[in-house]
């Protein structure tokens, strides 16, 4: 009996410290994060996410985007992220306070997406990429996400969000390729990815 009690205590006590530090501590402290207010402009940072972001994040997760794309910018002395123009400053905990789910990611087979909504502001760019990645970036090993689109007959006018496709990808005459609700949500989410506001704890990197 003693052995079992000793084992239990030892195992739980030793391991419990890491549980406190890495699970309980962040759970409690990060729940108390507050926004900052810019004295000059009165703007709040971070500004918060558009209402559709959560829905798009579900699509992002369902299709496993985070297995190849990261969503955090390291400081200038900790990697080339800022030199690669993936962000003007490192990201900190507060940047993620409004995200229902955070996808930091641990692989960069693709580019970092922390500020992709800042780099690319045209939804069409995202649609064309998702429909056929090599059309936008010839060397890309990104798979195509055709199931986020549907090809349908044009009803009267061409839909506003019809994807502008060329060459082999172009739909037959009289048809158009439009994103599904999921496709739209995903692109809205990607467009919302911009952590480009200033935060006092993460000043912009200087040369």
């Amino acid at each position, binding site marked *: 009996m003693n052995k079992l009690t000793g084992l239990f205590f*030892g195992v739980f006590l030793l391991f419990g410290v890491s549980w406190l530090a890495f699970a309980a501590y962040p759970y409690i402290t990060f729940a108390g994060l507050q926004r900052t207010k810019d004295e000059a402009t009165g703007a709040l940072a971070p500004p918060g996410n558009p209402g559709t972001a959560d829905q798009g994040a579900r699509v992002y997760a369902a299709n496993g985007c985070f297995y190849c794309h990261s969503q955090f910018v390291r400081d200038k002395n900790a990697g080339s992220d800022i030199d690669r123009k993936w962000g003007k400053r490192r990201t900190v905990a507060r940047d993620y*306070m409004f995200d229902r789910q955070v996808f930091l990611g641990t692989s960069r087979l693709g580019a970092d997406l922390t500020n992709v909504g800042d780099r690319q502001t045209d939804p069409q760019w995202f649609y064309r990429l998702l429909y056929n990645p090599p059309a936008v970036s010839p060397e890309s090993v990104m798979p195509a996400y055709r199931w986020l689109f549907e090809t349908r007959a044009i009803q009267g006018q061409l839909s506003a969000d019809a994807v502008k496709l060329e060459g082999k990808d172009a739909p037959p005459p009289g048809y158009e390729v439009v994103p599904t609700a999921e496709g739209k949500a995903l692109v809205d989410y990607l467009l919302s990815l911009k952590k480009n506001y200033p935060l006092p704890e993460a000043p912009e990197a200087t040369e």
Partner: protein
Amino acid sequence: MMKQAAISEREIQRGPATELGGLSAVDRSIRVPVLIFFASGVFWLIVASAFWLLASSQMHKPTTWWAFPGVAWLSFGRSYPVFLNCFVYGWAACAGIGAGIWLLARFCHVPLRSSLFPILAGVTWNIGLAVGVLSILAGATAGFQLLELPSYAAFILFLGLLMVGLWAVTMFWNRKPGPTYISQWYILGAFLWFSWIYATANILLTFAGAPGPAQPAINWWYVGSLLDLWLTPIALGIAYYLIPKLVQRPVYSYRLALFGFWSLALFGGWTGMTQLMGGPLPAWMITASIVAKVLMLLPVLAVAANYHLTIKGSFEELRWNPVVRFIVIGSMAYTAYAVEGSLISFRSIGQITQFTLITVGHNQLGLFGFYSMILFGAYYYIVPRLVGRQWLSQAMVMAHFWFCVVGIGLLFFDLTIGGSIQGFALQDPQIPMAAVSDLIQPFLIVQNVAVLLLVVANLIFAAAFALIFLISAPVKYRGAAVESSAEATNKIGSEVSVA
């Protein structure tokens, strides 16, 4: 001859050797649950293999027909997590639970009164995982790495874990009085830690809706602990049993073994954050993980030294014993894995290797080179004792061994070299991402070949496992397969079949 070793003494006390055909009372009582877990492990290993091959093909050529472009549920973003989940929660966990409960029953020397509980646990586990895997394929992932199973599936899995964990604790509680052995500690510790981390991570992340910035910390605390406090102690517990058993000598130093256990318990929970170097977490968290990764060398070296000194002098005689081969290669991979792990967690090296194929290769070295190799060894040792038959063909076992060694060797070196190139290229902002993709393309193709070798290895293993149930080995081979080499070289035939 075997003085201090609790293990050998107690095994000898268990009375006269039985023939391989006749099972000991303990083995007979634990037979069905262990075989259920073992068979589930093999089944999931094959499912994992299929998705592994698919995912590694998709990585270098996403547009060909065999990458199934346009099929949502077979796309890389789903095939990859399905592979990982089948591998970790299907193969690794089922094999580990099977071997773990076999070891516990054996050491506690109590035949089970009823095997209903662990059998039910096995069924529950399989249902939970099947539901979870189908959900991932359908796009209903929970979206956290290695915690992709949605909450309902995770809950079923946890019920299964709880059943088998409670059963293990009860068994230990009711054991025959006498000294305990280090393997029991490892296995029991693994069950306790895994139940804890699995419950905590799932509750905090999905039910209690952890705040965004806390999620990565919890996620990677879980992943680090999963590798270091669930898979590792199971494999070490098995090796601590099999190595002394096969060389017929007690463990070199029991103190060293205890030191290894407690230092693992102390540092094992701290290692996960190195994945998030430079990430949006307080710096002390990452620093603590780096320190823990380096200190993890203590338990690793303690284990390595202990195995080495136990086996020293006998290795030449035993090198043809397949069980020894798998265990020795697995243990060596463990040392390599830990040394590499501490190297790539230094900030100066980590900032280059982080995000690259090196981390993939590193994880494969741990999951396949270390853990799976030891578990293969355990299968080769345990299954004949439960089925009462020899492995059908030694050639098959050897083929399995060589496909594993060449496959994992190729995979590791390929990903390490490719990952280094990728890391240095990523570090240079002048090289555009498309060019980085181009640079690693050949390495992704070689990865596909290496994965193919490992898939062949897994298929051979599955075939051998199926055949032992179907065909009784011809008499002339009996004793020529797995068992016999140990038997012949040790000239203690009786001891081998008791073991």
